[in-house]
C-alpha cells in the first residue's frame, strides 16, 4: 500500500511545483499594467458623540430635511442643557408640541446654538 501511494503522489508534486515556477516568472516579466500616479484622499468629520439630528435623521453639519427642500440660510444646530443636539428648525417645531428633549425626556433648555 505505502509504496503504491508514494509512487502516485510524487509525479503530482513535481507537476504542481513546475507550474508555480512558470506563474512567478510570467508575472515578473510582463505585468499587465504599471502604476504611474496615485492621489491620496482624506475624509474628515466632527468628533462628536451624536452627529445626526434625531428628528429629521440628517447629519447635523448639513441642512435639515425641511430646509433642503425650502432653502433657508438660518438652518443651524442647537444644543440643550442635556447636551443633546438637533437642527434648530427641527427642535423649534417639536417644542411647540412638547417642551422636552426627544432623546432623554428632560425639560428642554437651550444651552447654545451654532450661530
Amino acid at each position, binding site marked *: 500500500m505505502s509504496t503504491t501511494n508514494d509512487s502516485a503522489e510524487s509525479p503530482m508534486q513535481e507537476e504542481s511545483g513546475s507550474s508555480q515556477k512558470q506563474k512567478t516568472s510570467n508575472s515578473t516579466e510582463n505585468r499587465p499594467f504599471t502604476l504611474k500616479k496615485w492621489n491620496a484622499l482624506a475624509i474628515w468629520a466632527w468628533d462628536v458623540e451624536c452627529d445626526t439630528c*434625531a*428628528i429629521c*435623521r440628517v447629519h447635523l453639519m448639513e441642512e435639515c430635511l425641511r430646509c433642503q*427642500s425650502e432653502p433657508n440660510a438660518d438652518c443651524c444646530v442647537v444644543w440643550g442643557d442635556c447636551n443633546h443636539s438637533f437642527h434648530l428648525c427641527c427642535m423649534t417645531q417639536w417644542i411647540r*408640541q*412638547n417642551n422636552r428633549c426627544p432623546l432623554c425626556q428632560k425639560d428642554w433648555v437651550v444651552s447654545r446654538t451654532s450661530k
Partner: protein
Amino acid sequence: MFNLQNRINGNDDDRQYLETRIAVRDKLLAQEMKDLESSLRQQKLWNLQVPSTSRLHELDLTVTPQEGIYKGGVFRFKITVPPEYNNMPPIVKCLTRVWHPNINEDGSICLSILRQNSLDQFGWRPTRNLLEVVHGLVALFTDLIDFDDALNIQAAQQWTQNRDAFKHRAREYIQRYC
C-alpha cells in the same frame, strides 16, 4: 397668518406649508422602508404591504400571533402617516373585530407610543419610527396586553371576573372574524 390680498395674488401659505410637510414626510418614509423590508424578512409574526408605491403613507399591516390567547388569529391594521410626521404619530385603525382590552370594537387602539400628547416617556416622539409602531402592535397581542388601562372596559372586566370566559370569547371572535 391669513392674508386675503396674498390669497388673491395666488400665494397660499397654508398649501405651501402642507406641501413641504408632505415632502419631508415622504423622504422620512422612503428612508424607513429599507429597515422595514429587512425586518419583515426576518420573521413571520407580521406582514406589511404598501398598496401604492406613490402613497408610502398608507400601509396595511397584518399581525398573526404565534402564541397566547390570540394564536391563530389574523388581525389587519390600516396605518396612515399624517403630513406632520414625524412630529405626529401614525394613525392606526384595527380593521378586524377583536375581543381585546386595548382595542375596542370600532377598531380604535390604546397603545402608548401612538399617543401624540403624552407627558411620560412612553408617548410618541420624533425619534420613534414605523418599525417601533409595528413592534408595538405585534406585542399588543402578547406582552403588552394591559387589562388595567383598558379601552374596551367590558373585555377587561370579563378578564377580572372570569378568565376562561374571556379566553373563550376571544377565540370565538377569532373564528368568526379572522
